[in-house]
């Protein structure tokens, strides 16, 4: 991340790279371990995401205490669950092979990286395909939706951990997306004049995603 003015700490840089989706394999595992062990790393991680959220939408400017409460609650729930953190069997990416676009369950995550100053887009996929060490609580910091499935053929050994927590059972393709909302509202305001649904949360359903 380029928004820190102090001298670059290599550990922070690695965390930043993880967030930008530029790490895989051992590097990603190391960064995840750092996140688990170092409270200041978790604070950075949270602050960076909060900055990104607020940049994208005022609606996402939530008090950090709320995230903390959510995370605590999730940890408690997870502690009560038998969570299989071993990597799930590698899913054959048939859906990808047959179509040029992949049925993507990670719209929230992908969109979530918009505006965070990630210098390269290539890494988005890598971020989503995080290694098994990426515990569910870690993902939850990002907020909206948990990734439950990924079918990228280039994922290699770093297969996505299937977070079988209670939240993961919910549909993962329903996302709240501030960026899409703006186009929708602009369309409805000018084209159909309606504010239909404007009061309620817009639930976008990602049908396909390209690269």
């Amino acid at each position, binding site marked *: 991340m380029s928004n820190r003015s102090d001298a670059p700490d290599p550990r922070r840089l690695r965390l930043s790279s993880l967030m930008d989706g530029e790490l895989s394999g051992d590097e990603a595992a190391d960064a995840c371990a750092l996140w688990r062990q170092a409270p200041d790393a978790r604070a950075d991680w949270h602050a960076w995401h909060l900055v990104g959220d607020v940049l994208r939408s*005022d609606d996402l400017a939530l008090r950090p205490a709320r995230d903390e409460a959510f995370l605590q609650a999730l940890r408690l729930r997870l502690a009560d669950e038998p969570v299989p953190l071993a990597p799930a069997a590698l899913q054959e990416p048939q859906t990808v092979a047959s179509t040029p676009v992949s049925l*993507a369950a990670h719209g929230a995550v*992908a969109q979530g990286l*918009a505006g965070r100053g990630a210098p390269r887009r290539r890494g988005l996929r890598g971020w989503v395909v995080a290694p098994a060490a990426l515990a569910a609580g870690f993902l939850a910091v990002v907020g909206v939706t948990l990734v439950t499935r990924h079918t990228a053929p280039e994922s290699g050994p770093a297969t996505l951990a299937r977070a079988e927590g209670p939240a993961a059972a919910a549909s993962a393709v329903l996302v709240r997306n501030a960026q899409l909302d703006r186009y929708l509202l602009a*369309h409805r305001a*000018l084209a159909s*004049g309606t504010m239909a649904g*404007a009061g309620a949360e817009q639930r*976008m359903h990602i*049908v396909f995603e390209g690269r």
Partner: protein
Amino acid sequence: MLAPGARAGQPASAAAALAAPAVAPVSDADGWLHRIQQAATGSSYQGTLTFNVGGSTSSARVLHHCDGRQTYERLELLDGESRVQYRHNEQVVTLWPSARRALLETRDPVAQFPALPAASSARVLENYELQKVGQERVAGQDSDVLLLKPRDRLRFAQRLWAHRETGLLLRNDVLGAAGEVLESAAFVDLRLGTRPSAEQFLKPMKQLDGWRVQRPPVERTQLEAEGWLMSKPVPGFQLVSCVRRPLDMGHGDGTPPQVIQSVFSDGLAQVSVFIERYDPQRHVRPMGSVTGASHTVMARRGDWWITVVGEVPMATAQQFEAGLERKR
């Protein structure tokens, strides 16, 4: 692709209405549409509206008044952040009371439920066939149920409940290909013939001391002038407006991104085509998404980013994206 039908309930009557060959087109389709439009814009009513879009429900209170030439309206959203919209003819003021923010806009005449888009009924009937389906009671009122059945697969059917006495739309459903309800707008209660005073609408539109007033600069332009051409027009759709505008005014302090928004209409369904400079920070990846009947396609075209949003099938939205051509 996920079938839209998987997301919504499928009332048997809707599927039956679409499938039944016995339903004959109404003889005076033109008259029906005219009556619906006249009732929505030229009469006075108040009530509560409910919208169901892609599984999300929201409500609004509406107060509509027409004294012959002048049209006034107050629309208050009852869900989420408090928002009130006042309209005097084409002048629209949207108020966010909690943020003390006011948005001043000039918009086309009322096109939202219970009105239909302000197109000629001939345009609508080129693309849809009007059928009378039956009679039902909605919001405590007797209504005639009509179906606007698309003449091709490029658009969705709409089912209309028109008030028996006045023609005012009491409910409007947009239906998917299998007859499932994609989104719905309806009155839950309605009073006709109310007589509010004009001041009731005009006063809050003028008293904006202490409010942060925003006037989004909206410039009329033309696709060709901006270097674009709809080289493969989508059948039945015509360009009805093209403006250059900021995407939104509500967020952040920086300059909001400028977009060119072209609106196409087939008389009933509307499609917006947004064109803007490609920005890797905001435009992450091409995608297609859906909420209710609104389908969105986003794609990169060299230095440009195209976003198509419309209450049309995904394939139609994709046709718009594909039909757009850069001329310079």
